[in-house]
């Protein structure tokens, strides 16, 4: 049975708005916790998806179909950035508003270096460091069922 989502979640022709303040809350959903932090396994680097608070309610991040998951909050300023690497300019992780038709608030934490976007990062140490540091910043609002 399809899950209804609020009308306000729909994009309805609205354009992306990449004017994030450092204080804006971002919402992330997760299936497992380790101790009192979000489990690392499902956290992506780069391109972790979140909902931005400017255009959503906290619980919407569980829609549709993830009502049994948990969710948490962190701020734009909590995004681990920059991250140094052995060769090349550091990676900059930047929140980017990336609306979807049924989720206008959808955003992604994308990786850039010297202005170039990196959709894949090969360095596993950098990725694991990023994922752990992001997990450390998430304030858990709801635990998974």
């Amino acid at each position, binding site marked *: 049975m399809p899950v209804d989502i609020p009308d306000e979640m729909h994009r309805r022709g609205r354009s992306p708005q990449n004017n994030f303040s450092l204080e804006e809350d971002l919402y992330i959903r997760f299936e497992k916790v380790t101790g009192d932090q979000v*489990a*690392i396994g499902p*956290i992506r680097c780069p391109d972790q*998806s979140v909902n931005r608070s400017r255009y959503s309610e906290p619980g919407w991040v569980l829609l549709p179909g993830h009502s049994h998951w948990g969710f948490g909050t962190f701020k734009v300023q909590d995004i681990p950035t920059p991250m140094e690497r052995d060769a090349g300019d550091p990676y900059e992780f930047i929140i980017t508003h990336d609306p979807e038709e049924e989720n206008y608030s959808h955003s992604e934490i994308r990786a850039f270096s010297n202005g170039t976007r990196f959709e894949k990062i090969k360095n*596993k*140490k950098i990725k694991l*460091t990023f*994922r*752990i540091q992001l997990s450390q910043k998430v304030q858990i609002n709801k635990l998974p069922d």
Partner: protein
Amino acid sequence: MNGNLALNLYDKESLTYGYDSNSLNEGIVLFELTEDFERVYTGFNPNTSSAATSSAATPISNEDFNQAIAQRKIGRNIESWVSVFFQQLDNMRDLENNWDGYDSPPPNATALRTAQDVLNILHNTGFKPSTLSASVEAGITISFYHEKRYAVLECYNDGDVCSATYLSDSPPEVREVGNSVNEIKEVIENMNTFIYAS
């Protein structure tokens, strides 16, 4: 073959585990035969010669099964948490591409084999993980937690292994780990020491 069969000691070449013949629903873990035998199975019940789990399982004869067991030293009994985590690994074999809705590849045989090595070591050392899950980074994540101390071990599809130790609000110490048994044993020992440091 009857009663609770003690878990065989870790053997990387054979990756033989233990099982509880009195209960196929509890305490059962993966069971793989050595390279001397061509067929492998999971959840095998020697009394009925039927495979309990896994559509890919192929039963073997009791004679072959007993011979495989007789070639191994006997270790201590399986603890329930070990079988739970081995079952979670077994379940990951059924994951497909895009299992998470974000095009992530499932853990492959390499990652599963490394994770099995890790679980064997953890069982032999009594170091119980907190969580085990498929990683969106193409592999398997094994995490540990105790009183604000964390440790993570990730086994990747390309054979690489990374580890990390950290306090709840401090930068993690992340390192690349060789995938040999001895290197994994060493890092697990260090993680155990860190997690339970007073």
